[in-house]
């Protein structure tokens, strides 16, 4: 490590925690203070299947279209100040995403200053039959069932890929890197690894980069958003600052945010995010490294500044996780609101009446679920009986493989307004909508089977 490196700070800013996150955040991150990289995470488990459907309808689609607007909002920072962007916005069609960004750059006369890196190879859908034929069962990690049992319903299949191809794109000079199903954490680890030249087997530093990624991958969820502890005292959420990793060569980093922004970064706020979606803390498995969350040390080193250090890692497994999405039937959810007095009793009677009517119609469902919002919907029996609420919402859901049965159910809600229990309102939304269920099938595959490639469009 050179002296220059030992003092150098690389700033990676989080500008999007999921597709649908605050549109203002990317621009605020590049304008509010110094940043080197802007990291945008767009993909949730089911997003890939939605994008796969869009691509089937139009081969130029299949990526997170919000990304085009995000790039437009930060274009001056990219072309004039050298901020580099890394995003998994490519979805199931990274080349189409890259083409859209290129067009945008041309429209702004900035094409000459944009070098777009495109990472592909995570999409396994075109190879699925070949893989199954070669003995890759892609068994469901929760149930053990082989993928062949739902093969004809599969809509998308993507391997979670790690930091290596992103680092390669950065090394080739890309200033916007677009991936498909990269792990969320790789989007943050890759620029740190690239800047500091961490080796392939530098497990502790790679693990540190992964932990940095985990902390900022959900945007403001580590900087005051959705923060439970002392939530009444968190300042100015309207102006919440998204997090920035200030990374050092030794793998330690500080979580910070720009000055004059709201929210709060403290040891407790960062800890809440660290435990979010946590499995076995000893083994946070990624394609690059297995990080040990029981090694993480946190220290408050200033206002809205938390230092993170001491992180240990070990070699990864020889598998990659695969996210498969498949069509799994239909569902519909209907709601009605019952008012005081005896709001809950009225809603409970409506539930019984509805179940009798569905029974008499002979409709078969895999699942019927009733919830009483205002009484027990989120905490179930733990909440105890409610005390004389002014209203209770009946929320009645059905799920099954027979679309006609689910469709028929949707006609049984409105009649209750006139032929069921009294003091009912809140039906202005109309008949419930039948939704196609796209379910998630987690599986593993041998690492060697997945071949990524990187192209930089100059």
């Amino acid at each position: 490590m050179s002296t220059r490196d030992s003092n150098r700070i690389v700033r990676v800013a989080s500008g999007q925690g999921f597709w649908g996150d605050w549109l203002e955040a990317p621009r605020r991150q590049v304008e509010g203070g110094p940043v080197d990289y802007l990291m945008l995470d767009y993909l949730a488990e089911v997003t890939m299947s939605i994008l796969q459907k869009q691509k089937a309808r139009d081969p130029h689609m299949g990526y997170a279209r919000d990304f085009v607007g995000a790039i437009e909002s930060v274009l001056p920072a990219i072309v004039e100040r050298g901020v580099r962007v890394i995003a998994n916005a490519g979805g199931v069609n990274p080349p189409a995403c890259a083409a859209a960004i290129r067009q945008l750059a041309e429209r702004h006369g900035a094409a000459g200053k944009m070098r777009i890196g495109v990472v592909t190879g995570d999409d396994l859908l075109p190879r699925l039959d070949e893989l199954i034929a070669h003995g890759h069962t892609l068994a469901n990690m929760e149930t053990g069932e082989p993928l062949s049992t739902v093969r004809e319903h599969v809509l998308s299949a993507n391997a979670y890929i790690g930091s290596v191809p992103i680092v390669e794109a950065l090394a080739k000079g890309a200033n916007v890197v677009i991936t498909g199903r990269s792990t969320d954490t790789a989007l943050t680890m890759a620029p740190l690894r690239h800047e500091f030249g961490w080796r392939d087997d530098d497990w502790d530093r790679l693990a540190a980069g992964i932990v940095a990624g985990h902390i900022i991958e959900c945007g403001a969820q580590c900087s005051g958003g959705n923060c439970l502890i002392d939530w009444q005292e968190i300042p100015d959420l309207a102006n919440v600052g998204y997090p920035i990793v200030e990374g050092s060569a030794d793998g330690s980093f500080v979580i910070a945010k720009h000055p004059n922004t709201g929210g709060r970064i403290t040891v407790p706020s960062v800890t809440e995010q660290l435990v979010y979606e946590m499995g076995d803390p000893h083994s946070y498995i990624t394609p690059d490294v297995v990080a040990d969350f029981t090694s993480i040390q946190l220290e408050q080193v200033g206002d809205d500044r938390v230092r993170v250090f001491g992180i240990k890692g070990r070699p990864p497994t020889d598998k990659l996780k695969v996210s498969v999405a498949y069509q799994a039937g239909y569902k519909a959810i209907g709601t009605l609101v019952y008012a005081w007095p005896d709001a809950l009793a009225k809603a409970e009677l409506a539930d019984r009446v509805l179940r009798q009517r569905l029974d008499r119609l002979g409709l078969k469902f895999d699942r019927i679920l009733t919830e009483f919002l205002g009484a027990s919907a989120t905490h179930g029996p733990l909440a105890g009986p409610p005390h004389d609420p002014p209203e209770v919402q009946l929320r009645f859901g059905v799920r099954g493989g027979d679309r006609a049965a689910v469709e028929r159910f949707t006609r049984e809600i409105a009649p209750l307004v006139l032929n069921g229990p009294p003091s009912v309102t809140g039906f202005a939304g109309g008949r419930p909508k039948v939704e196609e269920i796209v379910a998630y099938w987690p599986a593993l595959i041998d690492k060697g089977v997945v071949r990524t490639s990187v192209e930089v469009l100059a």
Partner: protein
Amino acid sequence: MNVPLLDIAHARSGDKGDTANVGVIARRPEWYPLLVRYLTRDRVVAHFRGVIEGPVERFELPNLKALNFLLHGALDGGGTLSLKTDAQGKVFSTAMLRMILDVPDDEAKAAGIPGATQWRTYSRSPKE
């Protein structure tokens, strides 16, 4: 002494398929040993009886003064399959914090838990 978990801990929850995870974090470092001793796996199993269908796993993170629980079979199938309002287990965190821990008086005092905390009705009963 009845100690509401809400008074000594905060929490965040999330999902992985049909499993909800709940991370419970001590509000003060000196209260973490109380969580280790009294927020046991059995206690959590009993607390969520009738709410979840599967087993419970428990992990200790002394570095973060936190425990992590995996509640299996918690989300009606999880993700898009689930018909629940909280299909992604986002508020299992506060459901956990309804728990009342029974901590011996001297231990509670030694850990600096303020006064004789009156039992608050966060949950269906103090022992279950």
